[in-house]
């Protein structure tokens, strides 16, 4: 089967050389042209477009690398900030984000390398097979037709020096042996070369790991604190009431014949205790996982939440289906925090919440017509309860790779946008 692998690698390399390199040439030209056009401004509109094509081109190579040679090339582009608008303004910001991304420049370099070394590596397997076979067969072909060297690019060399005809099959056999031994490896080398430029460097991966470690620690801390709170609430609340109830009922059992009036009073008290225990459990449950969220999903849960706010809240929901439970829960509590924040600090008369599914992400926007000036304050920077509330929300969203952006000029209005991936 080794022969087959050799031939398959040669064919794939050839196909790669023809199809992919054509794309690389065109894109390299287009990107350079578009970058040049930046000088006169038009490039701002075209650059994001051609760079996006280049990314798709690179993505295709990533797919092939894995499918043909098992080489994984991770992608690591910087995400766009949420809420980018269409039109020139949005395009300008897209352009800025892409040009600041080192991955863009590495990709450009890759296009150049892909056209030289990459092309050579892709063509080599087929070359070895074709020329190897050609040299092996040269004596036969030349014997039958009197020529043949021209086809292999050696001209009339073997006609002028017939002794070389003895060397040709040896050379051809050597090339075939190389192809037999190394064709799949050559193809892999092509993709490894691409990986050098297309994979995010170790440093970025280290950043990512650091961020994951941090958000995981946050998540663990938060859930531990939550469990402690629940334990305390149960211990001081419902549990204590049930104990009191049990005691009252014990006394009732003793008194029921001797002092029915007192027994009746105690039964009443036990009933009160059970009602209070139920009320406390209900509040606790609402804090852990709101029943409406379990029953109806995020949209209606936020509507129910809005109905409980003192400030009128308008809710629009465009979610095609239920999200996963962790995302629903995280989004629900984040919206709750943002609504409380807006109602408490902004002095708004009116709040609007918008929930929608955009490109595999849940996007939640909370707008208010209050006085503005809200910001996510870094830890220890002061800035009052509002900033730290937003920081808490941002941290908790971090666990889900969610991002929070705040647009809140002094004087308002304020718009807080959260995006959580939920493919």
């Amino acid at each position, binding site marked *: 089967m080794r022969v087959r692998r050799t031939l398959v690698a040669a064919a794939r390399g050839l196909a790669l050389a023809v199809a992919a390199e054509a794309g690389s040439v065109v894109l390299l030209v287009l990107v350079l042209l578009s970058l040049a056009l930046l000088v006169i401004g038009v490039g701002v509109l075209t650059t994001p477009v051609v760079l996006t094509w280049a990314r798709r081109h690179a993505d295709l190579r990533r797919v092939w690398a894995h499918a043909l040679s098992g080489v994984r090339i991770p992608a690591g582009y910087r995400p766009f900030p949420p809420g980018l608008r269409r039109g020139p303004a949005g395009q300008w910001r897209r352009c800025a984000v892409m040009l600041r991304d080192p991955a863009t420049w590495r990709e450009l370099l890759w296009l150049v390398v892909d056209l030289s070394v990459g092309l050579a590596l892709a063509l080599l397997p087929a070359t070895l097979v074709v020329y190897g076979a050609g040299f092996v067969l040269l004596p036969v072909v030349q014997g039958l037709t009197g020529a043949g060297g021209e086809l292999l690019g050696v001209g009339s060399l073997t006609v002028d020096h017939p002794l070389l005809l003895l060397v040709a099959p040896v050379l051809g056999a050597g090339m075939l042996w190389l192809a037999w031994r190394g064709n799949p490896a050559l193809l892999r080398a092509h993709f490894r070369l691409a990986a050098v430029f297309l994979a995010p460097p170790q440093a970025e991966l280290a950043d990512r790991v650091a961020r994951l470690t941090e958000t995981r620690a946050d998540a663990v801390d938060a859930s531990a604190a939550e469990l402690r709170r629940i334990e305390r609430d149960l211990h001081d609340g419902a549990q204590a009431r049930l104990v009191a109830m049990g005691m009252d009922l014990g006394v009732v059992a003793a008194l029921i014949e001797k002092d029915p009036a007192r027994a009746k009073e105690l039964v009443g008290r036990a009933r009160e205790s059970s009602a209070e225990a139920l009320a406390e459990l209900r509040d606790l449950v609402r804090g852990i996982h709101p029943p409406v969220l*379990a029953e109806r999903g995020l949209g209606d849960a936020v*509507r*129910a939440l809005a109905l409980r706010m003192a400030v009128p809240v308008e809710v629009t929901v465009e979610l095609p289906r239920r999200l996963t439970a962790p995302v629903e829960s995280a989004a629900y509590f984040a919206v709750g925090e943002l609504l409380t924040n807006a109602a408490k600090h902004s002095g708004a008369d009116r709040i609007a919440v918008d929930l929608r599914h955009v490109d595999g992400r849940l996007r939640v926007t909370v707008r208010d017509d209050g006085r503005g000036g809200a910001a996510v304050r870094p830890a220890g920077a002061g800035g009052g309860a509002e900033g730290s509330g937003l920081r808490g929300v941002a941290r908790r969203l971090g666990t889900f790779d969610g991002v929070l952006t705040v647009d809140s000029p002094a004087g308002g209005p304020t718009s807080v946008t959260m995006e959580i991936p939920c493919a």
Partner: protein
Amino acid sequence: MRVVLAEDLFLLRDGLVRMLEAFDFEVVAAVASGPELSRALAELEPDVAVVDVRLPPSFTDEGLQCALRARAARPGLPVLVLSQHVEQLYARELLADGSGGVGYLLKDRVFDAEQFVEAVRRVASGGTAMDPQVIAQLLSRRAGDRPMAGLTPREVEVMELVAQGRSNAAIAARLVITERAVAKHTSNIFGKLALPPSDDDNRRVLAVLAYLDRG
């Protein structure tokens, strides 16, 4: 009076059956899931249904959805919905068709058997029974806010009890005023909420809706 009961927890279902039977209700079906409830409501034509919001197999608001569907098929079918938690959202959905005969109570309310049975009877006869908690939620969010539709504090008190579904007599007893005074307050309230004249029961339901909507 013929009752269909839907509650998935055996202990509660059993307790409710016993309580209702003790008060001379005939429990024609006591079911434990949404599909069973839908079938019972369609086939048995009960005088009133007592339904838990959350039912298997989905354990979402299946009971409520079954009740709403049954009421769409048979408008005015009296339904009393029980839940571990009350939401204005659900209260609105139940009241939305404006035809009355709905109740929405916390499960805790079954502790007081007489009041609970009174609520079941009220719903069966086309009235409403809203949990005080639903009303309390409304009031707490209105705290410090402008008074609703220009109601006086006394009228707000009366409105609260109307919203719970109390009769004029019950309201009079609770607030220690005469029934005539209550009737005067309610007609003032209906006027301020701009409700069209119609029979009193229907107006009371509309008043509750208006009350919820202004929240």
